[in-house]
C-alpha cells in the first residue's frame, strides 16, 4: 500500500463530496416523492413515507455519510411541505435514526429479511410516535387509520428502495 498524499487527488475529493451529498440528496428526493400524487393512479389516499426508508437505510448501512442534521433537514422539509405540525416528523425521524444507529450491530451483515423486519419495527414506532405527537398537537385523538395505511405501504415498498440505495452506495464506494 502506497502512501496517501496529504491532500487527496481531485477525483478522490470529488468522491468524498459525492459520498456526503448524494445519500442526502437521495433521501431528499424520496421525501419529495411522498408528495407526488400517486393516489390518482391507484386510488390509495396516503402517500408512503419514502423519507423514512432513506433514514432507516442509511442509519443501518452508513450513518457516517448520513449525519443527524441530514435527517433533521429531511424531516423539517417534509413538515414544511405537508403543512402539518412543524418539527413533528423531524423529531420522529431523529428518534428513529438514534434508535436504529444504536441497534445497527444487530442488523449489519445479516439476511435481508432481518433488515426488512427491522424496518417494520421502526415504522411501527415512527407511526405510533407521529400519531401520539400529532394527537397532542391538535388536542384531540386523531383517527389512526391513515397513518397505519401509510406505514403499511411504506414497509411494502421498502425492498424496492433498499435495492436502489444499495446500487447507489456501491457506485459511491467504487468511486470513493
Amino acid at each position: 500500500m502506497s502512501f496517501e498524499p496529504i491532500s487527496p487527488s481531485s477525483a478522490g475529493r470529488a468522491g468524498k463530496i459525492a459520498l456526503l451529498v448524494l445519500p442526502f440528496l437521495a433521501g431528499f428526493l424520496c421525501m419529495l416523492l411522498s408528495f407526488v400524487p400517486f393516489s390518482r393512479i391507484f386510488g390509495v389516499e396516503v402517500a408512503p413515507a419514502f423519507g423514512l426508508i432513506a433514514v432507516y437505510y442509511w442509519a443501518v448501512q452508513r450513518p457516517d455519510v448520513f449525519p443527524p442534521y441530514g435527517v433533521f433537514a429531511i424531516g423539517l422539509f417534509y413538515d414544511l411541505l405537508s403543512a402539518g405540525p412543524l418539527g413533528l416528523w423531524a423529531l420522529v425521524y431523529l428518534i428513529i435514526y438514534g434508535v436504529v444507529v444504536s441497534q445497527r450491530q444487530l442488523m449489519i451483515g445479516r439476511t435481508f429479511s432481518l433488515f426488512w423486519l427491522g424496518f417494520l419495527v421502526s415504522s411501527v414506532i415512527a407511526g405510533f410516535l407521529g400519531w401520539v405527537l400529532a394527537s397532542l398537537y391538535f388536542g384531540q385523538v386523531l383517527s389512526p387509520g391513515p397513518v397505519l395505511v401509510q406505514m403499511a405501504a411504506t414497509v411494502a415498498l421498502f425492498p424496492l428502495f433498499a435495492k436502489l440505495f444499495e446500487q447507489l452506495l456501491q457506485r459511491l464506494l467504487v468511486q470513493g
Partner: protein
Amino acid sequence: MVTLAAALLLLGRAETYVVDRARQVVTDLAAPLLELASRPVSAARRVVESTDQYAYVFDENERLREENARLLAWKEAALKLEAKVARFEALLNVQVDPSIGYVTGRVVGDSGGPFVETLIANVGSNQGVESGQAVIDSDGLIGRIVATGPEASRILLLTDLNSRVPVVVEPSQIRAVLAGDNSFWPRLEFLPAIAPISVGDRVVTSGDGGLLPPGLPIGTLVEADDGFLRVQTFSDRSRLDMIRVLQYEFPREIDAQDAPAVLQPVASEVQGETPSASTPSAAPAAEGGT
C-alpha cells in the same frame, strides 16, 4: 438536534408568521419539481382509466342509454322551470348573482402526511389566487385556498381537521357547519335538535360569512356508524387533477343608507306619515338615496 425539533414543534403550535412564510416559500420552490413529477402520474392515470373504459364499454353504454332517457325527462322539466323562474325573477326584479371569475390549475402535490388533508396546486398569486377562495372540480366543492405564493398555493380540503364550511341542507334549507376530521366523510355540526333532513339530502354551501359563494354543490348526506350525520362529497379526493379556483367577491357595494341624516327629522315628526312622503328637512337625504 432532538431538542431543536421539539422546540420547533412547540413554536409551530403558535402558528407564527415566520412558520407560515417558511412553509409557503418551500411549497413555492418545490412546486415546479412536483409538477414535473406529477406529469407522468397523470399520464399513467389516463392509461389506467382508458383501459378501464375499454373493459366496461358495453356496460357503460347500456347505463348511459338509460341515463339519457331519464335525463330527457329532466330536461323537459328543467326548461319549464327555467321559464317559470325567469318570469318570477322579472316580476320580482331579482338581483342575479354576479358571475364569478375563476382560475384553472392542476393539483401537483398530495398532502404527503397522514395528519393533514391539503393539496398543492400550480396556480398562485400571480394568477390572481388569494387565500380564502373556494376550489371546485367538475363535481363540486373540494376545499379552499389557505396559503398562496407567487406560483403555487395550498388547498385545505373539506376533509381536513381544520376545515369548517357553512352549508345548507336541501331541500329543507337547514343550515349547518361542515367540519372535517381527517376521515373521508366530513361531519355536519350545529344542526338543530329536530331537523327535517334525511340521508341522501343534498348539501350545498350557504354563503354565510361571505367567503364562499352560495349554492356550490358539496355532496349528499350519509349516516355514519358513530351516529353523526356525515357528507359523502361529490368530488373524488383520490382522483383530483384539474381544479378551478373561484374568485368570488362578496357583494359589499350595497349603498349604505345615510342613517343619522334621515333618522333625525323622521324621529321628530313621525306622526303617521308614510316614509315615502318625506318632510322637507329630510328631502336632500332622500334624494341622495333614490
